[in-house]
Structure formats: structure tokens, C-alpha cells
């Protein structure tokens, strides 16, 4: 079988390689995390004085995870970029 093309990736593919795996990892993390912790309870014990319902809890949680995984993937892609 022919190995994947070693040529530098076009922009859309580079971004795809950052956006997609980080999205997937964030989705899995969100699922596991919120299966164990109820966002309503978390909102109750948080010091931030905002009352959030569960839907907002899930949404914020998902995007927090995504920011983390996205940053990590982006950082990796920067490190892996050729020096040219």
C-alpha cells in the first residue's frame, strides 16, 4: 500500500487535522465528564455567582474541553511544521 503523501499539507487539511481530532477528543471528554458530574451540582458549588441550567453547563463544558484540546492540537501542529 502506498504511504500517505509526504508533501506539506494545504491549509484546509492542516486546519482539519487540528479541528477534527480536538473536536472528537473534546466530545469524548465531555461525555465521560458529565456522565460522572451533574452540571447543575457543579454550578451550585462553583464560586461564580451565576445560576446555570444543565444545557448551559454541557455547552460551556464542551467548549472548555474543546479550547484545551484545540490549543494542544494547534501547538503540536506548530511544532511539527517544517522549518522551511
Amino acid at each position: 500500500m502506498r504511504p500517505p503523501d509526504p508533501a506539506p499539507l494545504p491549509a484546509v487539511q492542516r486546519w482539519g487535522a487540528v479541528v477534527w481530532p480536538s473536536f472528537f477528543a473534546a466530545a469524548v471528554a465531555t461525555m465521560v465528564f458529565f456522565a460522572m458530574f451533574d452540571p447543575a451540582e457543579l454550578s451550585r458549588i462553583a464560586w461564580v455567582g451565576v445560576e446555570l441550567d444543565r444545557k448551559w453547563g454541557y455547552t460551556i463544558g464542551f467548549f472548555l474541553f474543546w479550547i484545551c484540546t484545540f490549543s494542544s492540537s494547534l501547538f503540536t501542529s506548530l511544532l511539527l511544521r517544517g522549518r522551511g
Partner: protein
Amino acid sequence: MTKLANEAAVVADGDLYRAAPKIYPRETDGRFQRLRKAAVIVLLGLYYVMPWMTWNGRQAVLFDLPARKFYILGLTFWPQDFFYLSWLLILAGLSLFFFTAVAGRLWCGYACPQTVWTEVFLWMERWTEGDRARRMKLDAAPWSAEKVARKGGKHLLWIVFALWTGFTFVGFFTPIRELGPRVLALSLGPWETFWTLFYSFATWGNAGHLREQVCKYMCPYARFQGAMFDPNTLIIAYDTARGEPRGSRRKGSDYKAAGLGDCIDCTFCVQVCPTGIDIRDGLQYECIACGACIDACDAVMDKVAYPRGLIRYATEESLAGRPSHLLRPRVIIYGLLLAAGFVGFGWSVTHRLPLIVDVVRDRNALYRVAGDGAIENAYTLKIMNKADAVRSFRVTLEEELEEEGEDEASVKLAGGAPLEVTVQAGEVLAVPVTLRAPAGHIHGRADVEFIVEAVDEPGVHYEAESRFFGPSS
């Protein structure tokens, strides 16, 4: 058709794609295309219809995140059942290994949402822009009223379909029959609006624009398929021995005498390929095993009256003229694991205990000394009745701990008698419970075990451990 024309089929597109040329898959018909169409209709049919079906008066499949409950037909899953989801994912992974070992990328060709939705978006492109030749001509032509109408029509169809897809997606999480009227009344909440648009955008982008690039550059499965293949795996293969040397020939001529193989080099197999590869170069990671090249080649073989199967499902062994084996250690092991996994899953899901109890200790004080010197600990029992019926539960303390020591046996429910509580179907009831030990019996820490059992159903029985604390001396 010559090589040149074939290359002309690949037209460089705008900035977004840069090095990736636009692919115009040619339409073809045949066994595998009909099979794919059937798979698309069944799978997408399930997706779009399922949220509208009801089961015992409630949406048949509803992932009710705000209530933290998943309803799937007659089953209700709680966050505590997360284990089943992990189990299911492991089974899904194993199935992928199993089917890949047997027949290659069946998943990609028939079941992957990416290829399934891409297929539908391609249909819409064909309805509005015409067949492959017309689409290429249209893209190359300068802007005209017709081009605007055709392109506009395509995008309109795409966007409406994508929005419907996003709406359906949210309908798995919010009762869809209430969601519909709210969409029409433009009174969706921010949460529903966001996820409808987000999912629509992802569908439109992936199936309409990125298409095969998702498979080539974003999908991990394509990259590690090599580890799952072996020489006995069914792959889509071009029979090089039979086809080469390829070349055009006059109809009815004795091509064998001229030293030619069966491949007439019509390049139809390349034109129909949704990922733009030439299967005659051998197995490639871009191949999504859709079988379009098989159908196209078979049709050509019929036309020139050669036997079918120049491109076919074959194993490396069979192409080399050796016998292939379906049953081999990896297939047998995957198969046994899968069978055991599914049987275990089915049994376990249908034999779930419809009761969960969590014990939460009072966080404010370790213990309290009552007026008579007795030590009291406070707890909250969260009793979750997962059944679809109201149930009464009896709460007692495990008595057998007596054997472990006299002192621990001195811990009793504060009221003395067992507690009885009634919990509504699918509800969680928080029951405050106080345990009490006479003065001087408990020093430091003792283990206690609450027993919660359904009054009318002897089998429904849950034991939950906790601690009882007293003064250290």
C-alpha cells in the same frame, strides 16, 4: 477517452482547497451502487424518522440531557449506566476490526456518515447541475443566468437539507414534536439554535464541500487500515494479470494476438471514483471501498463482451492464484469476542437492577452528641427508582456486621424501626437518615452498610456502604 481528457477532469479549485483538485465523480449504476443506495436510504431513513417515533407515549429515542436520562425504545439509561455506553463503544470498535479483517472498508463504503451524507449531497448536485460532463462544463463556463440558477438551486437544496439535518440532530436531545412548532414560531432557545446551526454547518461543509478530503486527510481509520488487513482480506482489486497491458483496441479485434490484456483503458473506473484514485495502481489508502469502479468496469466489460470482474472484490491470495481462507485466527478471535460481548451486553442490559442508592454523608459535622451522650451521624440516601412504576423501598442496616465486633453492631437507625419510603417512577428521592450509637461504643470510625430493598420485589435489593464516625477516645 485519453489520459489527457482524464486529467482535464481534475480542475484546480479556489483557495480553500489549494493543492486538492476538485473531483467530479461520474455517475454509474450496478450491484454495488444499488447496495449503497439501499444503505443510504436505510441509515438516513433511520436518522430522520427515529425522533418522530413514539414508544409508550414518549419519544422512542430521546437523549434527554437536561433530565440526564437517555430513552431508547423501552429502556431508560441513567448517568450511572455510562458503563454500557463504554461497552457499546468497545463492541463498535471490535466490529470494525472484525468486518475490516473479513471484507475491508465496508464501513467507509456503506455506513460512515461522511460517505452516506456525501452521497446524498452528490445526488442533489446531479439534480441541479447535471451529470459529470455538464458539471465540469458548468464550472469552466463564465457566469451566466443559467449558471447562477443551477448553482443557486444546488446551494439552496444543500442548505435546506443541512438545516433539516441539524434540526433532526437537536430533535434527538429535545422532544422533536415540540421543537418543530417552536422553530416555526421562531422561539428556539439559544442552546437549540446554536446546535441546529452548528450541526447543519458541519453537514453542509463535510458532505457538500470537503467530501473525500475528510476521508483522505482527517480520518484516522484510513491510516491504520493496513494493520487490520491481511492477504485474506477482501479488497477491491484490479486484476493486473488479466488486464495488462492495457490499451485501446478496435471492437472485435483479436487483442490477445496484439499482446493486449482485457483492460481497454476507458478510464471509467477513474472517473467514477469519489476519491479520484486509479484502482489499477493497486490498493491505496484513499480507497473507501464504495465499489463504483467495479460497477463501472463490469458495465464496460458487458459492452465489449468480455467476462465481468476485471475489477472485483478479491483477496491478495486469490489474485496470486492461491486459495483464500475466510476462517483464520484473527477472524475467529474477533468473532468470538464480538459474540461474547454482544450476548453479555444484551443480558446485562435486560437484567439491570432498577434501583441505585448513593449515600452522602452530612458534610458539616463528622458526628453529633445527643442529649443522652449517644453519637449520631447524619446521611442523605439518594434512592433512584429506575423502574417505570412507583415503588416502595425499605431501608435497613446490614446486621451481619455484628460478627465483626460488638461495637459496630451498636449502630442503629435513629428511629429504631426500618424506614419505608415511596419513590415515583424514574425519580430520585433524597431521604435524610440518622444513625445512632449509644455513648462509648464507637471510637474513631466504623463501617456501616445500608440495605435498600423494594417492598414488593424481593430481587430488587441494593447495598450501599458508608462510614460512621465517633469521638476518637
